[in-house]
């Protein structure tokens, strides 16, 4: 009798344990169902347990995006390149290259935003292993940047702010596009990023689309493997651009034309059409994109 009681008790205990275990097994997918799955611009699927709150950008442009869309209190860090808006300096500094994994872990972000080519995919994979997803955006056109703003708004639950911002920027871009559409003999613009060796903005950069909106063209027509290809003096002589961007006349005279006097033969030098775009405007795909277009407009049509 006693033995039977023990056997029944064991059966009962096993049943309770199995039931609890079964419940736990069922609960896990439920949790996953409650989470969200997002796909970034590189086609990577990211599973988030909940809508992200604590975030930061791995690039200076992404920091600008986040400050324009997300509640400032939810942006938890900045990288060494971040310098805009001023409020970014109130956030703790974190190294993005090389990635300070321990510091990133300590900050406990729900999601990190970055853009293609700015964060190695291996770094993103390592962070993913540690439970921190990295969301990539990719921009080829100004419209891609505006869509990027809307995407961040959707992911962060700030659609209204993001859509309003994107729409107002879109209207200004469309206005500029209308103003400069079908201009005969579009100005040919060469933009250098480094002088020794000479590196320039290639055809597959955002600048090409900015120039198109303003009725001008990137003088570099050939598409190279790299977005910022190296060019020879002879290649630049052949391009013979109308406008050269990359520094003030005085600075380029010292660092560029004194080193490559042969390039004094290009039209831009002869006409004195050499301009210095603001570095953090021309380089950054962010909410100040219209400001960048306005600056370029000033150079193209003074």
């Amino acid at each position, binding site marked *: 009798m006693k033995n039977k009681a023990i056997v029944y008790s064991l059966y009962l205990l096993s049943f309770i344990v199995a039931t609890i275990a079964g419940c736990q097994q069922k609960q896990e997918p439920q949790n996953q169902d409650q989470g969200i799955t997002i796909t970034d611009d590189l086609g990577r699927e990211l599973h988030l347990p909940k809508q992200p709150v604590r975030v930061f950008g791995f690039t200076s442009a992404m920091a600008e995006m986040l400050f324009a869309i997300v509640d400032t209190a939810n942006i938890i860090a900045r990288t060494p390149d971040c310098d805009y808006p001023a409020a970014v300096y109130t956030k703790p500094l974190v190294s993005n290259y090389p990635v300070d994994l321990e510091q990133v872990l300590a900050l406990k972000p729900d999601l990190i935003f970055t853009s293609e080519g700015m964060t190695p995919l291996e770094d993103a994979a390592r962070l993913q292993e540690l439970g921190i997803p990295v969301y990539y955006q990719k921009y080829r056109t100004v419209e891609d940047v505006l869509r990027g703003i809307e995407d961040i708004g959707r992911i962060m639950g700030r659609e209204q702010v993001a859509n309003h911002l994107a729409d107002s920027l879109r209207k200004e871009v469309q206005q500029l596009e209308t103003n400069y559409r079908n201009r005969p003999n579009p100005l040919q613009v060469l933009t250098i990023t480094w002088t*020794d*060796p000479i590196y320039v903005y290639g055809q597959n950069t955002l600048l090409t689309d900015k120039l198109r909106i303003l009725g001008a063209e990137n003088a570099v027509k050939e598409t190279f493997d790299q977005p910022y*290809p190296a060019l*020879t003096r*002879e290649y630049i*002589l052949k391009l013979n651009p109308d406008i050269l961007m990359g520094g003030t006349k005085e600075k380029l005279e010292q660092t560029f034309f004194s080193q490559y006097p042969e390039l004094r*033969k290009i039209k831009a030098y002869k006409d004195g059409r050499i301009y210095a775009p603001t570095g953090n405007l021309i380089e950054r795909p962010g909410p100040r994109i219209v400001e960048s277009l306005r600056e370029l407009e000033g150079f193209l049509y003074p």
Partner: protein
Amino acid sequence: MMRSLYFILALLLIAIVIVLGLQVGSFESDLSTIAEAFLNYNPDNTTHYAIVHLRLPRLLLALVVGASLAFCGYLMQAMVNNGLADPYLLGTASGASLGAVLVFFGFVEITIGSFYMPPVLAMAGAFIVTLVVVILGYRKRQLIPAQLLLAGIAISSLCTAMVGLLTFLSDSESKLKSVIFWSMGSFERASWTLLPYPAVALIMALLLFAFLQKQLNILMLGSERAQALGVQVSHTRWAILATVSIVTGFAVATSGPIGFVGLIVPHVTRGLLGTTGKSNLLFCAFVGGLFMLLCDLLSRIIYPPTGLPIGIITSFFGVPFFVYLLSRKNYKFSS
């Protein structure tokens, strides 16, 4: 007879590669355009301008730098009596890289007066490092080759580590591109104003060693035997050191440190003309120049418009030939 034939062949090949090289560039240009550019030069014609002011100085700089490095490699191998020696043994390459990189990373203004500083600092870096290596290799009033060799390796490693540290701490991707240039070399900055510096240094050195070729050949027998045969070993070594540091310094300052040429071409020369040929040094310079011209041409054909870093091409095309040469049973470093 064979020697004269090799000389004629080398000169002929140099001329052919120069003519071919003049046709490669962004502006389309056939032989008639090239002939017109030289015989009936029109400064307003940009194709003519590119041929005369960009392509020709580039080709001549490649010729001079290739000749300089091969010539210096031959001298260094003779001096330390070791076939593994090259012109950068004294730390010239790493010193030059460090000098140039210091400018790019903002330690020195990029232009001072009208001088563009990277080549100037590269030259200074090459000389300073060579001087330190020579001081370390100088004992009891004489240069000790083994000590010189070790000092060169040590100081080179230190300079390379410093370049590595600066590169790691770099805040800009563009600066890294300059570091790559200064690590692998290029002839893109060639111009008629730059060309005379390495060219004059090379010609002076060739003239000096036209008189010292015999001593050089005896030196390859070892210092004690050379001393016994009446060679002033110490004087010859100092002459080699001074020549190598000046000629390599100019080559590196104008084109960056290009590896492998100074190592393999002396072996090619000895393989063809024997270890103690009378005109080995001159032939070595010709072959070095020809090899560099070919490498530059290939780099521009393979990866237009800028060309691959020249150091990559010199290694890719030089190593198989070098291995073949070493595998030949009758090849010896010294007699």
